[in-house]
């Protein structure tokens, strides 16, 4: 299980939990696991998120490995100027 | 609406064109003569990207009618280098990285050349005020001013 930290306004869809546990070994499994376990997150996941895995930010890479002890943080999807 | 026949000199080349009475010199240069080195950033004389000289006087070509060029001598960025020899300002702008996107560069070079013709030894403040009508959004002007002052020094040494 991976501990996923989510941002505050998403806790409305995770029973007020700031950290949720998802069975995942890749980014893809993480995102689909989140959507399955907490369907309320799906609209935001569909609009896009970035994910910080051990301090590095990933936007798209489905097969990015996640270790059980990885620090995983959901971020608003980054864009720039 | 009848067109006006204009006989002029552009960068030393005898040039004739027909233009509408309300057409600006900038439009003539860009759309009729294919000289797109002069840029339109505002069309109201506020940005200087269209700078040319007319009888040696620095002007915004967006605020000159094409018809007014009759009998005048117009000099544009396209005439700044002599053949394959860049004007010292052009060379120094590249050396000092005084351009990023480059859209303001032609106007600034024309304006800076006009400055150095009148004042071969400008202070930083004089250069900044002379070029105040040439907007640059990329560089913060630092490297532009350095390039102008360095060119002035080099040209003084050479003369």
């Amino acid at each position: 299980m991976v501990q996923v930290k989510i941002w505050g306004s998403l806790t409305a869809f995770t029973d007020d939990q700031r950290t949720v546990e998802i069975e995942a070994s890749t980014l893809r499994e993480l995102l689909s696991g989140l959507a399955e376990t907490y369907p309320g997150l799906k609209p935001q996941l569909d609009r896009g998120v970035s994910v910080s895995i051990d301090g590095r930010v990933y936007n798209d890479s489905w097969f990015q490995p996640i270790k059980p002890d990885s620090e995983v943080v959901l971020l608003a999807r980054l864009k720039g100027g | 609406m009848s067109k006006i026949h204009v006989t002029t000199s552009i960068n030393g080349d005898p040039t004739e064109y027909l233009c509408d009475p309300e057409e600006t010199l900038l439009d003539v240069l860009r759309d009729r003569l294919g000289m797109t080195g002069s840029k339109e950033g505002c069309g109201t004389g506020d940005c200087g990207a269209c700078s040319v000289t007319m009888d040696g006087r620095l002007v915004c070509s967006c605020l000159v009618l094409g018809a007014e060029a009759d009998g005048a001598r117009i000099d544009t960025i396209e005439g700044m280098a002599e053949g394959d020899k860049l004007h010292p300002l052009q060379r120094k702008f590249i050396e000092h990285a005084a351009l990023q996107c480059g859209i303001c560069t032609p106007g600034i070079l024309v304006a800076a050349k006009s400055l150095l013709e009148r004042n071969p030894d400008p202070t930083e403040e004089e250069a900044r005020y002379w070029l105040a009508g040439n907007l640059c959004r990329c560089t913060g002007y630092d490297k532009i001013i350095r390039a102008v002052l360095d060119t002035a020094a080099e040209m003084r040494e050479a003369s």
Partner: protein
Amino acid sequence: MALDSKQQLDTLDFKVVGTRPLRPDGIDKVTGRARFGADITAPGMLVGLVLRSPHAHARIKSIDTSAAQAIDGVHAVVTSADFEKITDDDFTADILDNCMAGEKALYDGHAVAAVAASSGAIARRALKAIKVDYEVIDHVTDVDEAIKPGAPVLHAAGGNESVPECSSPNIMARYEFGHGDIDAGLSQADRVLERTYRTEATHQGYIEPHACLAQIGQDGQADLWCCTQGHYMVRNTCAAIMGIDQGQLRVTASEIGGGFGGKTTVFLEPVALMLAKKSSRPVKMVMSRSEVLRATGPTASSSVDIRIGMTKDGRITAAFAELRYQGGAYAGSPVEFGAMSAFAPYDLEHVKTVGWDIVTNRPKQAAYRAPGAPMAAYAVESAIDELAKGFGLDPLEVRLKNAAREGTVASYGPTYPAIGLEATLRKAKDHPHWTAPLGENQGRGVACGFWFNFGGDTCVSLNITPDGTATVSEGNPDIGGSRASMSMMAAEELGIPYEKVRTIVADTGSLGQNEVTDGSRVTFAVGLATIEAARAAKREMCKRAAMTWGIDEEAVEWKDGAAHPAGPNAGSHPPLTLAEIAATASNTGGPIAGHHEANPEGAGVSFATHMVDTEVDPDTGAVKILRYTVFQDAGKAVHPDYVEGQFQGGAVQGIGWALNEEYIYGEDGILQNAGFLDYRIPVASDLPMIDTVILEIPNPGHPYGVRGVGETSIVPPLAAIANAVSEAAGVRMTQLPMSPPKVLAATQAD
């Protein structure tokens, strides 16, 4: 792992990277030869112009284009009725509605129709002949007014699922970040500062107005030339709007005359394509400056409430920010980035930010250099400065005391790897600027800033020519010298001189998908792809050398621009240079190339500290910038001149934002200053030289340690200048811009 790669980076011995060669597009740009958006022409092209709403908010009851169409020389008229409705993609649907208003005109300048005619004069006449029946409705342009009960509503559907029920329908989204317990933290403070800060909307102010040329054949094959930060984005968006295959639309990026985020979306391009389709002629469209200001994408205006607690020795005990950003008439203000970045420079036990995305009757905002971060940093850094000075503490020391470091849990969630904030603060403290004497009515300000960087889809193709030079094709418009940087990295990797590499920006038919030039990503991501493409070419060249020598590929290594035999079984062969291998390529298997397609992730975050001295004229409130120094971590400065240029340009855009730039709307909701005369960007005489100090703390996520540098430099200036002006004027300034009337009023009220 990180440490190993850091050590490797520290020992890299560069030959080309870090030098300052001349940029390859320099001569074109100093001679007027470079072709920008409005410089492109096609035989038989028509002039396209847009009719824009004169109302801030109006229902479009009907549009009668018959009189316009009847004018000789008018070849096409387009309204929203010509476009298929987009029902499955809100993001693109909003872009289309912004390009051509559907049911309502949502802001002054919103496009409602367009014409293509044989001349500009005829097109202007045609615009006047279009009759639009508007039902004018109440409007709102202020961010705080927009969420009051009874405010005019832009979109009846309201916001998304993140918005609490019963909120204003003008709230599109809510974001919350942070950790800890704010109230508990505040209770430990010796002083809690509560203030509201406001910033006005500003425009990127690129000097080149948007321009494009479109043509489309009866067979559906289309070509588009335009000035953009991302021609692949233009292709994909236009293809979706026009209902054509992406592969059928080839987009070529012209030289780009500035963007700063403002050219990361489309405004004219779909309209030009539709006009071209209806007229079967090429159509060129060029915006006027007033159209650029009224109807492209300025940044958000903001209203930010801050609550920060500090102990008298300068420790921040808790920090809270509530940020309200209006992003114009559609969802999507960058408030989430404001909320994520606001406290990112600090190591805080109790921190919370709440962001509200609000719509108003203004043009749809577009990204502007570190979108959303400068306004948040302005509020936070102003408050920290006021607290520090209130306790008589050194504002740099206070920042050092609270600075985020490796291992700090960032306010937006993750734990930081090695970061460069502390280094910029120490450099600032040791710099002579910090201790230089100040005169009467003068003040000094400092502030920190943070920005994310990212990678994104990237393709690079590198080809070795038969005579032994290299060409690099990349898919990102060169907005400030990136072709030079790519050539440098390719030359570094191949071991050949910089002059032997030429980099071009390829059209959408030549490479795979490329993310927009944004997120400070190009030197990082395209640079990484260029290095990998060069490495692939080197591997191929080593293979060719091995074949030539009749030895194993593994027994060949690439060094100083040549293949060398290496290892115990390689035997003795004179090295084969790149040129020698290229010369025999036809004999050894054909042309040699390397390419790399990837979505490089793992860009490092970036920090900066800015320091500025200002003088305030106590009689008029006029502010003069006396001295300015930027301290920023670049990871590795590939071409230091252009790194400095990014620092300087960002700082000066920040100076404009802080002092005189603002969108001014009248009571009627009409933009009052849609021109460079009254939208006052800094001119040369407003400024001193902008000094820069480049720090190089390598980014372990990049082979050369490169970090993005383009955006961070606009984050600290707003607060740094506000802190300096507040000190000089003797009164705390909490609203931007600090235009003379505001400064004078503040000093006189004090």
